């Protein structure tokens, strides 16, 4: 009997050994190109960032970032498969290769970025946010202290949950967290009066408030519980994909800085081609320098990106601008030379 068991174990081990896949340094970048499709993890439930329209398509800032990546990597901003993900499953989805990258209101933090933590790598921040609290005007709550012993509606499995805990704990205020699975449940809980306040990123609070019947009846408290720089992320082991993502985001910012827009990109390319002196512009648009190849993309990736999504300012204006459904003042999301914090390193 023992011989039988050891034989089985041995055989199983042998079979397992045969099945070991060759661990070369192949990047997901090639996989995406071969597949001719980008699998992009989004939330699908956050107005302004990613939500489903009545025709079933996704729309929002996060979605446009996905499109920019698809344009850069594949050359076609429509070749995307969107995966709506819950907050809880998003990192597992990246680690298991279920999605190529994540563009889903994800806060850039040390433990998520590090190999000892969640093992991701973040692209540059696409939206600077901060966690806030929204309360009803009639409740006369004006600061964190007024929320002592009150219930607060939180989305589960997010940094918001941790931040609110840290904030109340450091102020030694007791509170009751009511945890829901996604934002519209948090909104429902808050509107129905289950909680005295709801907490989320301030952008999401604003977005949610814009959909309320009486937006003026709700105020977002001045207390900012945390910095929430939201950034796309990919698997930390995949340096090539991370590089590509990083510079696609920078290209959006840099294009706004240089005044290159969706409508004038062709014009700019023509000008750059005819003027050998415009060295920085020629490098940026991939006419000189071969920058794109260095990060595994085509040299003219910037042209593809801008002509399909426009620059960062255009994307912002489309989904979060004054005339959009979810108006959020640009504030610190302006460029560095305009009072904000977005800046792109040089394309050299």
């Amino acid at each position, binding site marked *: 009997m023992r011989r039988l068991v050891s034989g089985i174990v041995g055989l199983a081990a042998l079979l397992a050994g045969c099945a070991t896949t060759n661990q070369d340094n192949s990047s997901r970048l090639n996989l995406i190109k071969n597949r001719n499709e980008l699998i992009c993890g989004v939330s699908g439930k956050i107005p302004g960032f990613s939500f489903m329209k009545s025709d079933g398509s996704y729309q929002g800032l996060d979605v446009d970032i996905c499109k920019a990546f698809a344009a850069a990597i594949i050359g076609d901003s429509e070749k995307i498969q969107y995966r709506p993900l819950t907050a809880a499953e*998003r990192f*597992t989805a990246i680690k298991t290769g279920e999605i190529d990258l994540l563009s889903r209101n994800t806060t850039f933090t040390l433990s998520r970025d590090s190999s000892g933590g969640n093992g991701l790598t973040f692209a540059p921040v696409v939206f600077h946010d901060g966690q806030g609290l929204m309360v009803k005007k009639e409740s006369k709550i004006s600061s964190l202290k007024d929320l002592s012993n009150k219930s607060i509606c939180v989305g589960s499995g997010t940094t918001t949950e941790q931040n609110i805990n840290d904030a109340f704990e450091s102020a030694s205020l007791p509170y009751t967290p009511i945890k*829901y699975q996604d934002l519209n449940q948090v909104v429902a809980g808050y509107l*129905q009066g289950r909680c005295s306040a709801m907490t989320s990123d301030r952008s999401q609070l604003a977005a949610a408030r814009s959909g309320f019947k009486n937006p003026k009846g709700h105020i977002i408290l001045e207390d900012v519980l945390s910095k929430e720089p939201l950034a796309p992320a990919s698997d930390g082991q995949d340096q090539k994909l991370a590089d590509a993502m990083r510079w696609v985001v920078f290209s959006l910012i840099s294009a706004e800085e240089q005044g290159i827009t969706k409508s004038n990109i062709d014009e700019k390319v023509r000008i750059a081609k005819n003027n050998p002196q415009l060295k920085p512009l020629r490098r940026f648009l991939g006419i000189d320098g071969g920058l794109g190849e260095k990060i595994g993309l085509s040299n003219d990736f910037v042209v593809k990106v801008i002509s399909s999504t426009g620059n960062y300012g255009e994307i912002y204006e489309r989904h979060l601008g004054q005339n959009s459904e979810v108006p959020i003042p640009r504030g610190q999301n302006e460029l560095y030379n305009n009072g904000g914090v977005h800046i792109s390193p040089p394309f050299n």
Partner: protein
Amino acid sequence: MKINQKIFLQFGICVIFFGLIGILINNLTINLTRTGLGFNFSWLFKPASFALAEHPLPYTSSDSYAWALFIGWLNSLKVIASSLILATFLGTLIGFTRAGKNSLLGLISAGYITIIRQTPLLLQLMFWYFVGFLGLKDNIFNISNQGIEFSGLIFSSEFLALLLGLSIFTSAYIAEVIRGGILSVPRGQWEAFRSLGLSERKGLISIILPQALPAIIPGLTSQYLNLAKNSTLAIAVGYSDIYAINDTIINQTGRAIECFIILLVSFLLLNLLITNTMEFINRLILKSRKYS
């Protein structure tokens, strides 16, 4: 010859089976090393750093993940135990009215059963919570959308919605089990107690029900097990049961495999608890029948 063949067949199947498992585990280890997570349980003793709305035992966010999971398990147990009692009560009541003579009540309970059985539990839970409990605007008899305060004890509306949703859903199934049990008692028994002059109610309780119990208990057990499993839908109404806490922890630590194993073990334990209790009850019933 025959026996050898059998051993050979089993050996072959073993090789294939364990080989497959070997391949899968091998893939898992490769994938886990790739993600840099590895496989261990030492994180269980790090501080959880999230708060819980409901904790039957003292809990703060600086307690360990293990303690948080245990609290979750207790929360599950709490809602399972209480809805088990409520569901049995409701189910028996509806089962009786369904098998009883009052046709109006019978019609109502039949309607109740079709509505409850033909819509998904998840939807029902969300309905009870978001529409039912959160819809309560005023504070009547200490009932508000914050929950119910009952002589110092506070039951949150999440707990109550889950309790109510699970109980109502399970009661429709229990009612059918009870009805089946009652119908399994020979018609002659009804005639017998009626001819003795016993009232319908008394006859049902003292003559029919005891005889129906052996047919009812197994069905009841499986409904209880279903209830326990369905309690994991707590996540949809914001109640911190074992699954919801596992979910939060997976999100914070990324330890999906470990958490899944913990979930498996906790449910195997729950199952053992329920089946053994029911078996004990079953044996008690059988014993009492022998003496009588």
